[in-house]
């Protein structure tokens, strides 16, 4: 019951989804749509598990006065504020112009945009790291990156050649390599999906 039934559920639902791909008939389409909705609903219920985990971890840090517990208080304050503001006026709580949305625009959005923009620094430091490696492979990577990067910048007499080379690299060897990766990933993913459906790969199920 504890192990066999879940494996059976995986098998039945997996085989059904593979079969429904080939069957256009509406009866299968309906079940497919329900199943997709059920998955979303399960995900929504699981959100509570997430909130529980975050809250419990933060609270226990505060209780134990662990190093940096004050920051856990900040997390809890942020979370509680959003939950309160998001529900206290029913479904009107998250309309544009509410305090809930103000917090979104003035706290959430700028931090998110800044985190994202850190990539500008990291892409440079990663390039430097690759530059220091000095192997054939790292050199191929860097030289190609340079050619592609410079395609938009005027380089005088070699501009035309560089632009031609950049577009050739993007459409020919780059495409070839990507296809090899895509095909490999396709085979790996389909094989893994089969192993899951047939219950061969089941580490994700845990043990008793």
């Amino acid at each position, binding site marked *: 019951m504890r192990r066999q039934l879940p494996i059976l559920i995986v098998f039945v*639902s997996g085989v059904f989804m*593979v079969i429904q791909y080939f069957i256009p008939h509406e009866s299968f389409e309906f079940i497919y749509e329900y199943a997709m*909705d059920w998955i979303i609903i399960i995900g929504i219920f699981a959100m509570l598990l997430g909130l529980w985990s975050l809250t419990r971890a933060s609270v226990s840090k505060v209780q134990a006065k662990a190093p940096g517990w004050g920051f856990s208080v900040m997390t809890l304050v942020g979370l*509680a504020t*959003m939950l309160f503001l998001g529900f206290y006026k029913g479904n009107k709580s998250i309309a544009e112009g509410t305090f809930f949305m103000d917090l979104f625009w*003035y706290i959430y959005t700028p931090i998110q945009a800044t985190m994202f923009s850190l990539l500008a620094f990291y892409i440079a430091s990663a390039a430097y790291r690759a530059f220091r490696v000095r192997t054939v492979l790292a050199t191929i990577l860097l030289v190609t*990156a340079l050619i592609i990067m410079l395609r938009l910048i005027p380089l005088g007499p070699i501009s035309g050649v560089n632009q031609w080379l950049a577009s050739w690299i993007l459409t*020919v060897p780059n495409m070839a*390599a990507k296809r090899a990766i895509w095909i490999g990933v396709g085979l790996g993913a389909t094989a893994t999906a089969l192993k899951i459906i047939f219950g061969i790969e089941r580490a994700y199920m845990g043990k008793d």
Partner: protein
Amino acid sequence: METIGIWIAALLTLGIFSFLYKDNPFYKFCESLFVGISAGYWFVTTFWQVFMPKLADNLIAGRFYYMIGAIFGVLMLLRLFPKIGWLSRWSLALVVGTTAGLYFTRYLVSNGMVQVQNTIIPLYVKGNLSQTIGNLVIVIGTFSGLIYFFFSKEHKGAFGGLAKLGIWFLMLSFGASFGYTVMSRMSLLIGRMDYLLGTWLGLIR
């Protein structure tokens, strides 16, 4: 509100940037606030935008087959109770099984069939040398790239040579992606600088 908002946003922006120097209390403050706010935001918006229309509205409209999803959802929550926590595996099994089946055909088609289909190209194009060379390179590149991914044969001899060619193609492609992304990442930084110097300090317009 707007002025206060812009000040808060600008200070938080600086707080995150300070991480580039080193980890510090200012960053920790921004980080922990960000985690709390984002988790709350995500819960609230998912509740109003997904839970209500997908479950509550459907149940009110009498579509009771949505109850099945709700039951599986509740089973998922039983994880919180160690004695009956194993019941959550049923929900997990439904999620994993369904999507494994879904992804099986999806990967087979988009990563398998379609790629093979796109690579079936003539090796010789009459009167068009550059296309002939291009097609040859694509076929050779895909071919050698696949050889690199062989697991059950040692990369030795001619096979090893082809695998090496394959990894060269892969590196070329990685370099191309790398170079291609640089500009867009720079523009993100410019966007933040614009906020600090323009919207906040009004130094640039």
